[in-house]
C-alpha cells in the first residue's frame, strides 16, 4: 500500500489514433472529435473499456480516429450492435457516433427502440441536415422545400426534430450542442457521460461542402445570443443579447416569449427542470424553435436517470431466475420432460 504507482492519467493524446483523419477540411466533425478526445480522459474510465460504435456516413468514420475499441458497422444499425455489446458487457462505456441520415432515416427504428429500452449507450447525432458521404441529397432533418441534387425542385418532406423524436421515444437523457461551441459541447458530453441510461445528444454540425451555413443563424457571432437559449437546470429560461427576454407559461399551459422589464421579472419565467420524470415539458421546449420569435434551446432538455438500464434489468432477471431455480444443470435439462428407457 502506498508505494503502488498509479498509471499516469490519460490525456487527449491517448485517445488519438495514427490514422489520417479523412474529413473535408473545415468540416464540423473535427471539432466534435476534438471535444470527445478531450472529454474521454476526464471520465476516469480505463481506455480499454471504451467502445465507439458507428453506422455509415461521414460521422461514422469516427471510431477510426478514436484510440479505443471501435466498430464501424453498417448503415443505421449501430444502436442495435451497441445493444448487443451492452447486454454482454454492461460495464463497458459504449458511445455511438451517428448522423441525421444514419440515425433518423435508415436506422430510425433502431434509434427509437434503443432509447425506449434505456440501454446505457451514449448517442452522438451529428446533424448537418444533409447527406454528405453520398454527395448532397436532402436528409430527414432538411427543411421543407430544400433544393438538393435529388430534389432540384425542392424537397417535399417535412423534417424530423431529433430532440422531439428522442423525447417521444422516452429517452431519459436528451441534449443539444453545437460543433463550434467547444466549451458547451464538452460540458454537454460530460453530462451525457454521467447519465447511466440512454443518452441522446444532437450536435448541430456544419457541412461546409454540401450544406454550408445550415446553422449560421445560431452560430454567427451577431445572431448567436438572439437565437440561442442555453438551458440550465434550476435557472430561468432567458435569452437575448442582454438576457432581456424569457419564456413564460401561459394560463392554457402553453409558453410565450416575454420581454423582461415593465413589471415582468425573471421570477415570472419558467425555471428549467431537466430532471422532471415526465417528458411533456421537455417536449414543449423541443418544439419552440419552430415558432416565430422563439429561440433554439441548447443544453440538457431532459436528464431523468431513475429508470434502470436495459442491460442491468436483463442481467438481474438472470440472477433472479438463478436465485429461484439454482444454476442450470445441463444434464437435467436434456433429461427434462417425459422420458423412457430402452433396454
Amino acid at each position: 500500500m502506498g508505494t503502488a504507482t498509479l498509471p499516469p492519467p490519460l490525456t487527449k493524446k491517448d485517445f488519438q489514433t495514427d490514422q489520417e483523419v479523412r474529413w473535408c477540411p473545415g468540416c464540423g466533425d473535427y471539432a466534435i472529435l476534438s471535444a470527445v478526445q478531450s472529454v474521454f480522459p476526464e471520465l476516469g474510465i480505463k481506455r480499454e473499456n471504451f467502445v465507439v460504435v458507428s453506422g455509415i456516413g461521414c460521422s461514422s468514420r469516427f471510431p477510426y480516429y478514436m484510440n479505443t475499441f471501435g466498430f464501424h458497422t453498417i448503415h443505421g444499425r449501430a444502436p442495435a450492435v451497441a445493444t448487443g455489446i451492452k447486454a454482454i458487457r454492461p460495464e463497458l462505456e459504449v458511445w455511438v457516433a451517428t448522423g441525421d441520415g444514419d440515425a433518423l432515416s435508415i436506422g430510425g427504428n433502431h434509434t427509437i427502440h434503443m432509447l425506449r429500452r434505456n440501454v446505457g449507450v451514449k448517442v452522438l447525432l451529428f446533424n448537418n441536415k444533409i447527406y454528405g458521404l453520398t454527395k448532397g441529397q436532402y436528409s430527414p432533418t432538411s427543411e421543407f422545400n430544400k433544393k438538393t441534387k435529388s430534389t432540384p425542385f425542392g424537397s417535399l418532406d417535412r423534417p424530423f426534430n431529433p430532440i422531439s423524436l428522442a423525447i417521444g421515444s422516452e429517452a431519459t437523457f436528451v441534449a443539444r450542442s453545437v460543433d463550434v461551441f467547444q466549451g458547451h459541447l464538452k460540458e454537454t458530453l460530460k453530462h451525457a457521460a454521467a447519465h447511466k441510461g440512454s443518452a441522446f445528444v444532437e450536435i448541430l454540425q456544419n457541412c461546409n461542402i454540401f450544406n454550408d451555413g445550415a446553422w449560421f443563424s445560431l452560430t454567427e457571432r451577431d445572431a448567436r445570443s438572439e437565437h440561442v437559449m442555453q438551458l440550465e437546470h434550476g435557472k430561468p429560461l432567458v435569452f437575448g443579447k442582454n438576457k432581456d427576454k424569457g419564456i413564460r407559461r401561459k394560463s392554457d399551459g402553453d409558453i410565450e416569449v416575454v420581454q423582461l422589464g415593465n413589471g415582468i421579472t425573471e421570477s415570472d419565467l419558467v425555471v428549467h427542470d431537466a430532471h422532471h420524470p415526465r417528458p411533456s415539458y421537455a417536449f414543449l421546449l423541443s418544439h419552440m424553435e419552430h415558432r416565430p420569435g422563439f429561440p433554439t434551446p441548447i443544453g440538457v432538455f431532459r436528464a431523468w436517470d431513475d429508470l434502470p438500464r436495459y442491460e442491468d434489468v436483463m442481467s438481474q432477471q438472470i440472477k433472479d431466475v438463478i436465485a429461484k431455480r439454482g444454476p442450470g444443470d445441463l444434464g437435467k435439462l436434456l433429461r427434462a420432460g417425459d422420458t423412457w428407457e430402452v433396454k
Partner: protein
Amino acid sequence: MSTLIEVPPVKHKREVLDQAVIRFAGDSGDGMQITGSQFTNTAALYGNDIATFPDYPAEIRAPAGTIPGVSGFQLHFSSNEVYTPGDAIDVLIAMNPAALKVNIADLKANGILIVNSDSFKEGDLRKAQMTSNPLEDHSLDKFRLFSVELERLTRRSLEHLGLDAKSMDRCKNFFALGMCYWLYNRSMDPTVRWIEEKFKNKPLLVEANKLTLKGGYSYCEATEAFQVSYEIPPAQLTPGLYRSMSGNQALALGFVTASQKSGLPLFQGSYPITPASDILHELSQYKDFGVMTFQAEDEIAAITSAIGAAYAGALAITTTSGPGMALKTEALGLAVAVEIPLVICDIQRGGPSTGLPTKTEQADLLQALFGRNSEAPIPVLAASTPADCFWVAIEACRIAVKYMVPVIILSDGYLANGAEPWRIPELSDIPEIPVKFATDPVTFLPYKRNPQTLARPWAVPGTPGLEHRIGGLEKQDPTGNINYEPLNHENMVRVRAAKVAAVAQDIPNVLPDGDREGDLLIVAWGSTCGSITAALKAQRAKGRRIGHLHLRHLNPLPSNLGDVLKRYKRVLVPELNMGQLLWVLRAKYLVDAVGLNKIQGRPFKQAELEQKIEEMLGL
C-alpha cells in the same frame, strides 16, 4: 405409477400390428395439435418409434368450419424404425366436414374413419362447400366409418360440472383422443398427467378434460363400437434414455449445450417469425443457464445485436425464416468482413415473399450459399431430422468459434415442428468447444491469422492494450486498418474464401448408406432424409443397387464427395425446391445428376421417391 383411471378388463378381439398412421384433423380451434401431440407422447413413452407431421394453417383462426381453417396432425408409430410420418393413413379423425374433405384422399381403403357427426349439419356442410352429406350419401362406403356424436357425448359426460356449452365443446377433442387410446390399447396416464399440470390452477378444467378423455375410452368399451383393437409393440431402438424431440426444441437445447461446452454466455437476437419463433420461446426459458434472449425490433436488429454480442465475447445466434434471412443479408456480409463467430438459423418455409408461412420447403439453399453482395462465403449446415438439429447446433457453434466465421444452419418447417424419439446423450460424450480470447498486446494484430484455420484473433472490448478498430470497410492484412489497395483487396477476398474452404478439414469423409457403389446414388440434404431412407430400404429389399448420401455440410462440401459421385451410374437429387443442390453439384462436379422436385409445401412421400428411383433405373 398407479393408473389414475380404472380400465375394465378387455373382452374384444385384439390384433397385433407393426405400425399405424393416424391423423387428427379438425378446425384450427379444435385442438388438433394438442390431441396429436398427446397421442405422440403416449406412443413414444410406450416405446414405439415415431415420426410426426403437424400441418396447420397460417391463419390463427380462419372462419370456423371452412377449408382454410383445417388443422391436422399426423403420427406414424411403429414397433420398427420409422423414417417418415407415413404416406397413407390408417385412421382419420375428422372433426368437421372441411377436415373430412381435405384429408379423406389420404385414408387407406378400409381405413378407420371417425367423424364428429354433430358437425355435419346443413350449415357445416355449406361451409365446407359440400352439396350432400357424406355420412349419408355412401361416398364413404369404402372406409370403416364411425359416426360419433362427439359434442353430445362430451356434454353428457360433463353436464354435472356446471360448465357453459362452449367450455364443454372445447373438450371434445379429448373424447376422440380417448377413443383412439382404446383403439390402440394405450394408457391414458401420460395425458392425465399433462392435463393435471396444464390446468393446475383450474381444477374444474382438470376434471372436465379427464372426464371427457375417459368418456371416449369408456364409450368404445361400452358400445363395442370397434370390434377390434390394436396392439403395436415397442420398437427395438438403441438402448438408452429417450425423450420426444422436435427440431426447434433440439436447436435450442443444442445451443444451450454449446454455450456450456464453450463456457461462453449464449445470446439470441431474434424477431418472431413462423416457423422459427419456438426457438426463441424455448431459449427464453433458460435464464438459469445465463441465456440472454433479445426480442429485437426487427430482423436486422436481431442479427446486428447478435453481432454486437459476439464482438463482446458471447456465443451469439440469430434465428429466423426465409423472409427474415433476406432482411439479415447485409449484416451477414458485415459478419463475414469483421470475421466474428455467429450462428444464423434459417427455418425454411414456402416462398417467395411471405409464401406459405406454415408449410415446409427447402428453397433457401442458394440464398444461404450466395445471398449476399460480393464475395461473402459462409459455411452452411443442414439438419436432417428433428433430433439431428441438436447436433447441428453444436457443430455450427464449434465451426463459428474455431474459424471466426458466421455459420448458417438450414432447418425447415417440417423438422421444426415434427418430432421423433431422441436418445439423450451423455454429457461426457459431447466434446468441449475450445475458445481462446486474445490477451497479449505485444503480439496482437486484429487480422493476424492462425495458420491452420486462418481464423483471426477474438479480441473483446475491455482487454487492456488491444484497442483496435474493425468494420465493414476493406481492411489491411493484418493490421485491420482501412485499405483500398487492389492487391490487398484481392488477397483479403481470397483469404476469407480459403478460411471457409478450410472448414472442410473438419468434415469427415462421407459414406453413403446402402450400396457403396452401384446403379444409383441419391444425394440429398435436410428434412427429406426420412422419406429417402424409407424409399431406399424398400428398393434395396427388391435387390436394387442404390446408395443414399445425406449431406450435413453444404458449404464447404465434404472433400471426397466428387469421388463418391463417380461410383454410381446415375445420381438423383430429390429436393423440395426447383433443384438447388442439383445446380450446385452439376456446377461443381460436372455430374449429370437428375432432380426430383416437389414444391407443394409438403414433404416427399415414400411412393413418390420410389417411383422416380424405378424410373431412373429403367424399371
